[in-house]
């Protein structure tokens, strides 16, 4: 109880720090920049934060708020980018950020096929905000014990987590199971391309240096979904969607999104908690969290069949998970001195540059900094949420733009996005090739979701499996060797067996009266 009160006291003084005019200004600038960076595909929160790092040196040494203002600015960019990434995914079917890739599954269908861009946008913003809020509360009160559990997640435990994610996604987009399996295989094959860090040798690179970085899933998804969709719609010549787009603008959509959220709180809240914990595992974070969130929502939703066709849960769940995972990724940084995501790794580099040592001593030696940062997480999300919500009507209008005008813009953004990932023309080539591949797969009715999931999770799954086996000298028992890994594996097994068990049960019942 005493501890609880002292945390509240610290938090209050943190709000005092974060609410100073200069810090608020930094937060606002950070959030706005983050939004723009997030909207543009390719340029993610990570590069946004990295670009601003040199500027923060001056803020930390010369500004009135010191390092606290600097970190508030960088975190503002992080939150802004999280929200901004949603926009391009939903409106143009191009992922603005890695973690908004999942939004392509349901966000764009709701916006375009069902003509409800306003509803899709406000749902995702709302879910982001709720997820982040819950995560920040957990961050405030339980960061140390959570970090202590997270640090125990090594290769065997992570492998179990990935297997669990796969099981929640089984049957995704499955009209034809065979086609799904083929797409998973294709995705795993793509994931295998590049430099294998475990043996230090190139795989499937065929002597090309650029290929050593691997086939990034962002350029691939930009191609598959963004360009592929354009090619497919060119055939339909954009008929239909303009007329079908609902005439009413904006704020009603927001109200409807609130209603939708209320019906789904039982789903969104636990997913946010899981996302938060996932984010706090060192080295993982928002992207994997968003996939897990989507998979879980789909498994436990009554309207499972609507997923992939514009189901609101398919937008809210991954977005809540991604945002809570982003907040979670700050936990190991503050509590342990270990980054939880690529973006937080850059923020941590900032701490070094400003002369702070991230880690447990931070809570003792730089209390103001830590609590100012935590308070700014609350304020930052509130600010981002409000800005986003007010722009929904305006953003939704973009969808009314005649297709002939908007198409070239989407292509341009796709290309710029692919290029800006690594300033590499190779990625642009990947995007274009996968645009054609995406068009062809659509025509042949192959599901794209299993391909993307395999591409995103395949590499990490394979790596953690091999790392575990190297550590154990080849003994597979290590995969269930720790209580955590064993429990997660059991859960995964349950996820696979449950549908079978369910399908067996009614049959038995019908059989028994006859007997």
């Amino acid at each position, binding site marked *: 109880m005493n501890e609880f009160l002292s945390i509240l006291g610290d938090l209050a003084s943190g709000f005092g720090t974060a609410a100073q005019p200069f810090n608020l200004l930094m937060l606002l600038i950070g959030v706005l920049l983050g939004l*723009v960076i997030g909207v*543009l595909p390719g*340029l993610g929160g990570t*590069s*946004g934060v*990295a*670009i601003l*790092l*040199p500027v923060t*040196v001056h803020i930390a040494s010369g500004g009135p708020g010191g390092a606290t203002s600097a970190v508030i600015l960088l975190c503002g960019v992080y939150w802004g980018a999280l929200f901004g990434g949603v926009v391009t995914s939903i409106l143009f079917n191009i992922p603005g950020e890695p973690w908004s890739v999942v939004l392509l599954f349901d966000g764009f269908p709701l916006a375009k096929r069902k003509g409800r861009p306003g509803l899709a946008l406000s749902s995702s913003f709302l879910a982001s905000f709720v997820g982040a809020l819950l995560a920040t509360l957990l961050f405030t009160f339980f960061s140390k014990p959570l970090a202590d559990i997270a*640090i*125990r997640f*090594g*290769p*065997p435990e992570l492998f179990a987590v990935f297997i669990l994610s796969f099981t929640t996604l089984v049957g995704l987009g499955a009209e034809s199971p065979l086609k799904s399996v083929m797409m998973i295989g294709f995705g795993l094959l793509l994931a295998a391309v*590049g*430099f*294998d*860090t*475990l*043996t*230090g040798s*190139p795989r499937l690179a065929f002597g090309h*240096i*650029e290929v*050593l*970085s691997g086939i990034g899933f962002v350029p691939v998804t930009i191609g598959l979904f963004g360009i592929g969709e354009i090619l497919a719609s060119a055939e339909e010549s954009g008929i239909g969607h303009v007329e079908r787009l609902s005439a009413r603008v904006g704020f009603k959509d927001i109200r409807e999104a609130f209603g939708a959220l209320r019906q789904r709180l039982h789903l969104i809240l636990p997913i946010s908690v899981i996302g938060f914990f996932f984010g706090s595992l*060192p080295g993982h974070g928002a992207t994997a969290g968003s996939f897990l969130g989507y998979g879980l929502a789909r498994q436990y939703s009554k309207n499972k069949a609507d997923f992939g066709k514009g189901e609101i849960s398919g937008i809210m769940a991954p977005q809540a998970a991604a945002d809570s995972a982003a907040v979670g990724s700050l936990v190991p940084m503050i509590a*342990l001195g*270990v*980054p939880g995501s690529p*973006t*937080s*790794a*850059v*923020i*941590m*580099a900032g701490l*070094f540059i400003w002369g702070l040592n991230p*880690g*447990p001593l931070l809570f003792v030696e730089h209390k103001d900094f830590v609590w100012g940062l935590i308070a700014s997480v609350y304020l930052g999300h509130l600010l981002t949420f409000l800005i986003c919500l007010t722009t929904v009507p*305006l953003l939704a*209008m*973009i969808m009314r*733009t*005649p297709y002939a*005008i908007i198409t070239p813009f989407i292509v*341009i*953004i796709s290309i710029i996005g692919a*290029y*800006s990932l*690594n*300033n590499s023309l190779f990625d642009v080539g990947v995007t274009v090739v996968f645009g054609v591949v995406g068009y062809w797969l659509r025509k042949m009715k192959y599901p794209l979701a299993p391909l993307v999931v395999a591409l995103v999770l395949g590499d990490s799954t394979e*790596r953690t499996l091999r*790392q*575990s086996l*190297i*550590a*154990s*000298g080849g003994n597979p028992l290590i995969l269930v060797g720790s209580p955590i890994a064993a429990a997660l594996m059991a859960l995964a097994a349950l996820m696979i067996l449950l549908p079978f068990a369910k399908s067996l049960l009614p049959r038995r019942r019908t059989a028994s009266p006859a007997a």
Partner: protein
Amino acid sequence: MLSRRGVAVLATALITLAACGGGTATPSASPSTSASASAVTAEKPTRPVEFVISTAPGGGSDTYARIMQGVIEKLKLSPQPVNPVNKPGGSGAVAFQYVFEKKGDMHYVMITLNSFWTTLITTKPALPYKPEDFTPIANLANDPFFLWVNEKSPWKTAGDLIAEAKNRPLIATGTGSKQEDEVLFRRIQDVAGTKAFNYVPDDQGGGHVATALRGQQAGIEVTVNNPSEGLPGYQATPREIRPLCTFQPQSPTTGPFAGLATCKSQGLPIDDYYVVRAIMAAPGLSAAQQKFWVDVFKGVYDSQEWKDFAAKNVLDLNFVSGDAFKKLVQDLTKVHTDIAQKNGWL
């Protein structure tokens, strides 16, 4: 009307990107102009410089590069902006190839560490150039290696650990495969005659390696982290990991690890291996162009910011340029080729 507004929103967004993206993105589509006459003859950069980093943002050398860039900017050491550009992939190969292709162009400098040797020596199929082909600028610091174990470990000295390692393969982890951490472990098993370590390659950087040891993930027992990477776990209360010894010739005299025994004194005679924090430039720069960059990085080295950063991260300050640096490059090539040969990595 509405459609125009939509377009305007997009256009604004794009312009803003161009403005703030200026930091990283760059002399994009101009390989032809980059090799232009003016660039070759000038003794100072005439357009923004790319400071190439072989890791992703937030990775080890990324932090170093960004600190250096901050100092260059603050002290106005270069007449043109120096922009960090990340080219991760292939344990550095992607970055090396990128800079190698900028032959004779002084607008490309690169921060390197030992991967510059390990990757160039062990990558198969072999890369068409050697470490000596790049224009050497300077080394700014040596980042020492310590031998770390979990606080719960029974071993008090390197000798205890070696004795156990002769009985059974210990589980070790480090950054990458055939990179500096593994090189050091293989040297240990070579020098001390232990069983081969079960070396688990980690791909998330040194900080993550130290974390794996803190959490004893997958049964990991020993690492060779740099001091700064191990610091958070060492300073945690209660303490989670501790160094047994340092691979430096002498014990550190200041900082949080003052008085730490040398590995040599504990029966593990390796005292010549450390991570270099060095700068290389595109191949074939003129002497004057090379001097320009040596002066810039000497300026960085002499700054208070760099000294503070080095103290905080327990780096050995060690500025080496000119012929001495050329020799260092050759020596490191020899050390790494030697260990690669012994382990059949070639």
